[in-house]
């Protein structure tokens, strides 16, 4: 509860970053999710160390179950419908899924942030135009547009990333617009302005650092969103092209056998879920850690 007790700020410790790190160290959710994310990233980086070639098929060893369901140690997580080693595909899949998410989010972050900051900073006509663009974007049923574009250009990894990037920027724009507006109205911006700062300086030195926390938090939300979305596109057969092993594609390939060899969908499904869960928890943690900064 925020009883407005403006306690006299005591010089206590160093930079805002140092205080953030201190808060981070005592935030369990943040620590756990960071650990998971680091693990996934490591797996993605170390994918070349996978036990098998993820593309090497063996039609005589199809759908071998994983070790714990009676398979062999040769294929720890079994093989898929074309006899490819599941563990290896899963490891490469981490790479694909993460890069899809990251690239898509990078693109949308650039678009959304630019629009949001412009609208929030300049207001007036610029704001109206940006709001209109945001409205148009929101009114367009995104997933349908995505389907249309992917079915047009084919679902190469690039297309999927770009299309998602071009359609997921709305949240960045909306949130950063209001965050920028808020920061814009702060007196330190006026102060910098009367000190002769140029617009670019204001944007880069004063606005951006103060909205960076929003940016990062949304980026995590959208990252999770993009990864899930890729899975949905793959489900409809319009995601990444085979044989590229994205987790979404693996789930969608496994879905055929859901009723019989359910591990084909369960393993990548759980992997995906843990990743998305971790990203979301990470985002929540980040929000908790950075939020109080807004006050002073």
């Amino acid at each position, binding site marked *: 509860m925020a009883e407005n007790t403006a306690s006299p700020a005591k010089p206590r410790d160093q930079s805002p970053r140092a205080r953030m790190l201190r808060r981070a160290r005592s935030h369990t959710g943040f620590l756990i999710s960071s650990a998971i994310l680091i693990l996934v990233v490591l797996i993605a980086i170390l994918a070349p160390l996978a036990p098998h070639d993820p*593309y*090497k*098929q063996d*039609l*005589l060893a*199809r*759908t071998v179950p994983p070790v714990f369901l009676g398979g062999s140690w040769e294929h720890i997580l079994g093989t898929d*419908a*074309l006899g490819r080693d599941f563990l290896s595909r899963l490891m490469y899949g981490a790479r694909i899924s993460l890069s899809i998410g990251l690239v898509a989010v990078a693109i949308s972050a650039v678009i959304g942030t630019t629009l949001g900051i412009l609208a929030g900073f300049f207001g007036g006509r610029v704001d109206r135009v940006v709001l209109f663009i945001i409205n148009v974007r929101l009114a367009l049923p995104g997933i349908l547009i995505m389907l249309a574009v992917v*079915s*047009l250009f*084919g*679902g*190469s990894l690039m297309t999927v990333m770009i299309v998602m990037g071009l359609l997921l920027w709305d949240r960045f724009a909306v949130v950063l617009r209001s965050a920028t507006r808020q920061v814009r109205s702060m007196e330190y911006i006026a102060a910098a302005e009367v000190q002769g700062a140029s617009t670019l300086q204001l944007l880069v030195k004063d606005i951006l650092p103060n909205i960076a926390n929003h940016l990062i938090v949304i980026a995590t939300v959208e990252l999770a969103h993009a990864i899930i979305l890729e899975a949905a596109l793959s489900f409809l*057969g*319009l995601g990444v*092209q*085979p*044989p590229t092993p994205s987790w979404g594609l693996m789930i969608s*390939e496994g*879905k*055929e*056998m*859901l*009723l*019989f060899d359910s591990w084909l969908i369960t393993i990548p499904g759980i992997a995906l879920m843990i990743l998305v869960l971790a990203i979301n928890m990470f985002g929540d943690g980040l929000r908790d850690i950075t939020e109080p900064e807004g006050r002073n």
Partner: protein
Amino acid sequence: DKANDTATLLFTKELDNANLYYTTAREGTVVGYSAFDTLMYRDPATGDYLPCLATEWEWVDDKTLKLKLREGVTFHNGEAFNADDVVYTINTMLDPAQGIKNKGLVSFIDHAEKIDDFTVVLHLPAPYPAAFEYLAGNTVIYPNEYYAEVGAQGFSMKPVGTGPYMFTEIVPGQSFTLERFDGYFKDSPKSAAKIKTIHVRTIPDVNTQIAELMSGGADFIWQVPTDQAEKLASRSGLNVISETTMRIGYITMDAANRTGNSPFTDPLVRKAVNHAINRDAIAKALLGEKAQVINSACFPTQLGCEQDVTTYDYDPAKAKELLAEAGHADGLTVEFYAYRDRQLAEAMAGMLAEVGITANINMMQYSALSDKISSGEVGMAFMTWGSGSINDVAASTARFFTNSAWDQSHDQEVADWVNTGSTVVDVAERKENYSKALKKIADEAYWVPLWTYPTNYVISADLDFVPTADEVVRFFDMSWK
């Protein structure tokens, strides 16, 4: 289910239009057999043409066919069948203003002429040997008065035919219901309907279909992927039947260099691709026992489908050699398009990779891909073709090797043979021309002919049904055990 004499059938795709001249989908063909009748009927077992709405026919000359019609047949709405219906149906559908979709059904006819109430003459613009295939296939006869009254759109919502089943309800995209037509004419080569109600629902997801079947919500599913079908076979209460169909798979390669930089202009490369793919292994593993590897660019039972052609066995070493000879010792990267059977495409791409051909798979919607192919932008594609269940090379090879937009080889010699084969009437002559064409196609390795597709049917144990090889589900052949 058996208790209320209603069989529920699940289809993956919907019946887009119950007015059969406006659909090219398999579902239309299927319904056509049960709700309508054609002038003739082809016995699925023997391949003979039996009298149906027409009782007798004779060729007056190469281009004129005279038919005697059956008397005493009535449409579902009570309208009597006579020559007016036949003439009206054919001439109406030939009118370009109608904008029908499945032009092939009538386009071989110039016009129909009424001689008397039960005699009509069909005038063909040119000799057309495969005419009976169509007349016995989907060139169904509509009631003229009713059709004139409701028009094309009205008819698709409430179609009326003479078939053993009549439509009672159509929910576009979702389901349709057929009811036994008790006034079906006695002497029909098709049998009368046995089950009272046939309810066909569209469920796009195979898992959901299986779930419905296992939970008793349906009696019949088909086109089930082989893996699932095999697993379902062990379940009690369900029967799994696998039956061949006329659909073949093939890889087409841009031998005519329409894309501008095609490596496939070199026959060595095309042969290498042929050698690289282990069709047997894929067919066996992924399509099941009923799948047959083919070597000729047509379905084996089709009239004129020459079997004695050059074959290319699985030999990766040879493939590599050929590639090296063609100057691609370091390998080759191509775009590989496909519109269905992702797994099969993947398996083939995997094999191509083994010999040094990196095939980047591009899965696309059928329409988008056919657009791309016919505008000459595709180097290599994995396609399938069902010949519209027409048992004649005219419906398969003839489509792909006559210099049309679909022709990826543009071999004038082949085109001439195929055209002759499709237009002369004499069967021996036709076979000879097709044979020459198919031999050259195989020699030149324009295609990689792959395999035939079996269809897996999974039906509840209560249901008695024997599928036919033409991929047409005849509702009137179904009965309860």
